[in-house]
């Protein structure tokens, strides 16, 4: 209705005079389908998206600033909560960067454990993606299936690290505890059931006409545009570019594992779905190789007493705590051990001055940690290059000429985790 007339005159509508106005609609930040607190400002012409502006920042936590006020080891607890669906990758990037600044390397068993947990985390993250994407596009039962499998993985995490999420398990110098005695058996049981479950998901979705209709040809992003936007991860690989930090710049011994990097060529939502499902299968292969390497025992933390976390933690009935033998040692037997423990826990380690950029391949793409040290006990600058932050820049390009319903499919296929985007 125009400002001049207060009633729509239906008798004398002139089709040539129909005004074309676009409607500006706000999607989010509180929305069931935006994968967290993402706000999309959509300009709509009917159902067609004319333009789209993602607005982020609704989960800005100040993690980077907080890390500057804590010790190096405490930084792990902060960064693990950035991308909360892939906490092990955050910890890995931070610890690898700090270890490069220190000039040390974690012991081989710790590296195998790191790869093991990272790959299981990749599967868990892709399961959440599959669950939420399925639910948003109408396959509501996928939500239950995805979270059912994820519970199996979280049981393994809980048995090994004490927590289901945000573990603080990787530390500078290694990992904080070894696997429990029944850990490998639990993981083998998971490996036994998982391939069948992935086949089940493919049976439900891959040839499903509704799934195809909503995902094929939707959200197309070509390889050049993706690279120009700085997109990495499954989005880039679905456009045909075989870029994976694990292959290009291997870390933690990834060059010694046999795995493939799946790519697709269409660059649409369906291609990203195929790439992620295939990645889950490849990760299962890597987990199996890790289990074989864990047969021999070994240390899981560096030996240097100036760097290693002083405690001997174990998962007790009420959570993680120091082993009673260690507590007896520092409280009753050795004063030096007590002083050392006190210093390491309160003051922490000191890292030589310098800067380093360490990329790791998280489920969403290249997760980079830029760490600057001034030689002290606290990080001077912790910058998290989060893949979702960069991948979201490509959303307006993918939504050109799309429908509103496609916006849901596109956001889902980007798989953003707003904790990483906003940090």
């Amino acid at each position, binding site marked *: 209705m125009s400002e001049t007339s207060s009633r729509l005159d239906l008798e004398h509508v002139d089709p040539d005079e129909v005004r074309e106005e676009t409607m500006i609609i706000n999607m989010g*930040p*509180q*929305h*069931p389908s935006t994968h*967290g*607190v993402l706000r999309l400002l959509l300009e709509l012409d009917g159902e067609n998206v004319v333009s789209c502006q993602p607005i982020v*920042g*609704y*989960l*800005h*936590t*100040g*993690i980077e*600033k*907080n890390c500057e006020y804590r010790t190096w080891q405490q930084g792990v*607890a*902060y960064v693990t*909560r950035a991308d*909360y*669906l892939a906490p092990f990758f955050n910890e890995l990037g931070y610890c690898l960067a700090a270890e490069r600044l220190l000039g040390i390397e974690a012991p081989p068993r710790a590296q195998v454990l790191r790869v093991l947990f990272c790959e299981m985390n990749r599967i868990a993250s892709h399961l*959440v993606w599959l*669950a*939420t994407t399925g639910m948003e596009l109408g396959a509501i039962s996928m*939500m*239950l299936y995805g*979270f*059912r499998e*994820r*519970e199996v993985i*979280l049981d393994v995490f809980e048995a090994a690290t004490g927590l*289901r*999420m*945000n573990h603080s398990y990787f530390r500078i110098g290694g990992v904080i505890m070894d696997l429990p005695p029944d850990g490998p058996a639990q993981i083998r049981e998971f490996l036994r059931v998982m391939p069948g479950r992935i086949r089940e998901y493919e049976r439900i979705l891959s040839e499903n006409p509704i799934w195809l209709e909503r995902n094929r040809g939707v959200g197309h992003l070509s390889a050049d545009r993706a690279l120009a936007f700085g997109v990495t991860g499954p989005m880039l690989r679905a456009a045909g570019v075989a870029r994976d930090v694990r292959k290009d710049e291997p870390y933690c011994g990834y060059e010694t594992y046999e795995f493939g990097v799946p790519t697709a060529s269409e660059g649409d939502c369906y291609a990203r779905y195929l790439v992620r499902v295939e990645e889950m299968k490849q990760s299962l292969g890597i987990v199996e190789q890790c289990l074989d390497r864990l047969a021999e025992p070994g240390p899981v933390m560096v030996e240097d007493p100036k760097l290693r976390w002083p405690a001997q933690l174990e998962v007790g009935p009420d959570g993680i705590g120091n082993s009673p033998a260690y507590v007896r040692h520092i409280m009753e037997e050795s004063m030096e051990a007590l002083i050392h423990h006190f210093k390491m826990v309160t003051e922490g380690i000191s890292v030589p001055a310098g800067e380093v950029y360490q990329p790791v391949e998280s489920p969403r793409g290249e997760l980079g940690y830029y760490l600057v040290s001034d030689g002290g006990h606290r990080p001077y600058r912790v910058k998290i290059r989060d893949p979702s932050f960069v991948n979201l820049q490509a959303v307006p390009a993918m939504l050109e000429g799309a429908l509103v319903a496609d916006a849901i499919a596109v956001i889902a296929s980007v798989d953003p985790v*707003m*904790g990483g985007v*906003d940090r």
Partner: protein
Amino acid sequence: MPVERLPGRHDGRATSDVEEEVRRGVLLTTLDRAVSWARKQSMWPVTFGLACCAIEMMATGAGDYDLSRWGMELFRASPRQADLMIVAGRVSQKMAPVLRTVYDQMPEPKWVISMGVCASAGGMFTNYAIVQGVDTIVPVDVYVPGCPPKPEMLMYGILRLHEKVRTRGRVR
């Protein structure tokens, strides 16, 4: 101005009034209890998952820790159709007005569960960016600590809220 005196006892209430009150009280107490019971039986949460706690909230709603045993698996996207807001995750300064708007849009009666330490007290993020406790913005009924709280912890908090509603609910 002369006060009109009612016949009977002069302690401010008439005998008939007292009886009337007692009778009304019994009826309404039973009604209170019935309505409170009904309210807690299927409390619909509004989707307000923000960060890591949201994932645990989704896990609580999923198959393994089923919330639909209490009729709560249906997370309503529209606050107009919900009566419970589980603030799951850290609330940033930018999100705080949105939180208050969604809370205001919910019709009475409504309850708030503050899930996780970040929502309850700011958590580990004692900095410029995070609201140090959502009880500075909305009134909270139950605080569930944890980072993130396990689904069992959230369920315990939800059941405590149900008890609170059942025992202290008032119709008027």
